[in-house]
């Protein structure tokens, strides 16, 4: 019994010590530039956040090896928000108040970015989000930028492709999370604008494992094309269920599945699926004279060598965020948050993995539709079909 009590007491003691250690906040160093980052390295969005986190560490090391920025080394403090909005807010508070960072990279997902956006403008620190929702930059929040191309461009690429193929009726199947919601909104808005007709609007849950019910309903509406908007593993299930039900209608996916994992999960059911994607995942097929060629091949080679896994578009966002920030600091000639913010708005012609960034006071994303190419899955690999 005594032992147990001692254990209890020691647990409390440990907690107290942790408290004390925790309370000692680090001093601000003069010869480094402290940058904060918040990524969803665990939780439902970990497949986005983990490559982002890895990439940011790698990119910062690379910049430091090449002499740093303004002669100073970059020092990045990365927090994991576990894809949880409360944790994300706490992480931002901590970065701003304890770590005294000059800029924040991330967060990974749109919801978390929108949640911290009002806070970041109160702290007067620029933030470069890796999430895709348009709401992040429209209306423009002076302190918030993003490197992921907006869903609108991906949706437009898909719909134009359907239109060009002679389709008229479109069915959409979207996931019920922030990503799917954002895609669903632009699809519903753009389908009539492009001159198509929406005949079915179905939803599936992020953890659902069978979508035959939704697909059966879609089949009943006999569309000319089905657009599925989600991230793994849902779309892989959709692809498999489509084959199971013998649906021959062309299936379009969003850029959210643009990683090799999707082909692996969907297996032969992935054949013939069309999707818009950044040039990063088809780096080899990008024309040699395309401005993005050197960036995408360099990043891919570095990432695959260091982490031993295939690159994804999402990791690329981390790369773009770091280089965008580095360029802004250089242009500003200062590591003052306000100066960095002002410089970020003036970055033009920066070639990243997602496209060429041309920022302005009105456009805090700086990308356009050319960020995407249409890709078809053939023989278990990506194939560019329209650039």
């Amino acid at each position, binding site marked *: 019994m005594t032992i147990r009590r001692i254990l209890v007491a020691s647990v409390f003691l440990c907690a107290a010590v942790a408290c004390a250690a925790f309370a000692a906040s680090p001093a601000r160093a003069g010869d480094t530039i402290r940058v904060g980052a918040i990524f969803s390295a*665990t939780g*439902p969005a*970990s*497949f986005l956040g*983990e490559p982002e986190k890895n990439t940011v560490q790698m990119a910062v090391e690379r910049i430091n090896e090449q002499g740093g920025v303004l002669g100073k080394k970059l020092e990045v403090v990365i927090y994991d928000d576990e894809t949880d909005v409360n944790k994300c807010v706490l992480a931002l508070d901590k970065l701003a108040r304890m770590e005294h960072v000059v800029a924040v990279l991330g967060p990974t997902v749109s919801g978390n970015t929108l949640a911290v956006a009002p806070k970041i403008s109160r702290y007067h620190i620029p933030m470069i989000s890796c999430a895709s929702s348009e709401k992040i930059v429209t209306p423009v929040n002076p302190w918030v930028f993003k490197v992921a191309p907006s869903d609108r461009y991906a949706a437009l690429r898909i719909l134009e492709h359907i239109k060009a193929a002679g389709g008229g009726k479109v069915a959409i199947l979207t996931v*019920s999370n922030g990503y799917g919601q954002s895609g669903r909104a632009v699809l519903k808005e753009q389908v009539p604008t492009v001159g198509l007709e929406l005949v079915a609007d*179905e*939803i*599936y*849950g992020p*953890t659902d*494992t*069978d979508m*035959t*019910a*939704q697909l*059966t*309903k879609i*089949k*009943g509406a006999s569309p000319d094309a089905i657009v599925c908007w989600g991230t*793994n*593993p849902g779309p*892989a*299930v959709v692809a498999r269920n489509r*084959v*199971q*039900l*013998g649906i021959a209608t062309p299936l379009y996916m969003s850029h959210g599945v643009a990683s090799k*994992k999707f082909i*692996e*999960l969907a*297996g*032969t059911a992935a054949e013939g699926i069309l999707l818009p994607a950044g040039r990063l995942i088809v780096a080899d097929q990008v024309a040699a004279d395309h401005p993005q060629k050197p960036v995408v091949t360099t990043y891919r080679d570095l990432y695959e060598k260091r982490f031993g896994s295939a690159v994804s578009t999402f990791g690329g966002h981390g790369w773009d965020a770091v280089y965008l920030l580095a360029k802004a600091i250089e242009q500003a000639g200062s590591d003052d948050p306000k100066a960095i913010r002002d410089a970020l708005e003036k970055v033009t012609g920066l070639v990243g993995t997602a496209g060429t960034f041309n920022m302005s006071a009105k456009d805090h994303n700086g990308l356009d539709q050319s960020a995407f190419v249409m890709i078809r899955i053939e023989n278990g690999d990506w194939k560019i079909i329209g650039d």
Partner: protein
Amino acid sequence: MDFASILQYLISGLTVGATYGLTALGFTIIYNTTGIINFAQGEFVMLGGMFSVFFLNVTGLPLPLAVAAAVAATVAVGAFIERCTIRPVKHPTLIQLIIVTIGVSIVIRGLAMLVWGKDTFALPAFTGETPLRFLGATILPQNLWILGITLVLLAALKRFFAGTMFGRAMLACSHNKKAAYLSGIDVQRMVLFSFMLSAFIGSVGGAILAPITMASYDRGILLGLKGFAACILGGLGNPFGAAAGGLILGVLESFGAGFVSSAYKDAFAFLILLGLLFVRPSGLFGKSAATRA
């Protein structure tokens, strides 16, 4: 709405329902022996799938052996959990044990994430992926495997609980531990065995479901929830009720998606479940008078 579509909804519902039912079966076994709702039950299903993928891809075992090894490994985990976290609780109350099992499920999920990563994995189907056509609807061979194995498990469980001394001894523990102990039943051993048996059923479920649902470290949460709901729907403590509850829940969701709205399919299923609970407080197949467990 044509007949083929309705049949397809039914098949879809039964497939999803089987996943709930198999999880619910595991809940029932532990509940029947100990009165505990084991919130780590979903993790057994996850482990069954993940171990299968692991043994197949990493150690290169052929599929049947990989599944067998996965089941054995999960049963060992089940035994370990009972020994290390359930048995040492002194004077357990229900709510404490529930929290222990929640803690255990968090630990298992965390370990699985560290060991296998955060990716989703696919397991090949047992006998091909060519869909079978049936009255205008389609069904995968794996669906037949799932329904068949579920039925076999159910029949075996029925024989076990009703026909063997060991099974009846386990049942006795749930009715009255003290009386069971006095009549010479080793209660602790029964509890241990119930965890192993339920890990067995969970992992078999996980392995046969993985070709359809795929496997990832976080698969257990939702299955645990739905499995619990299926248990209650069928009436706690009744293995047939649990399996049937799972199937009904799956079919409700599928028809909800087909006829109401796919966005509200889960809400639809749970609304019906709530309505049913309010009218029949002891579930569809439960004994009347649900008292504090």
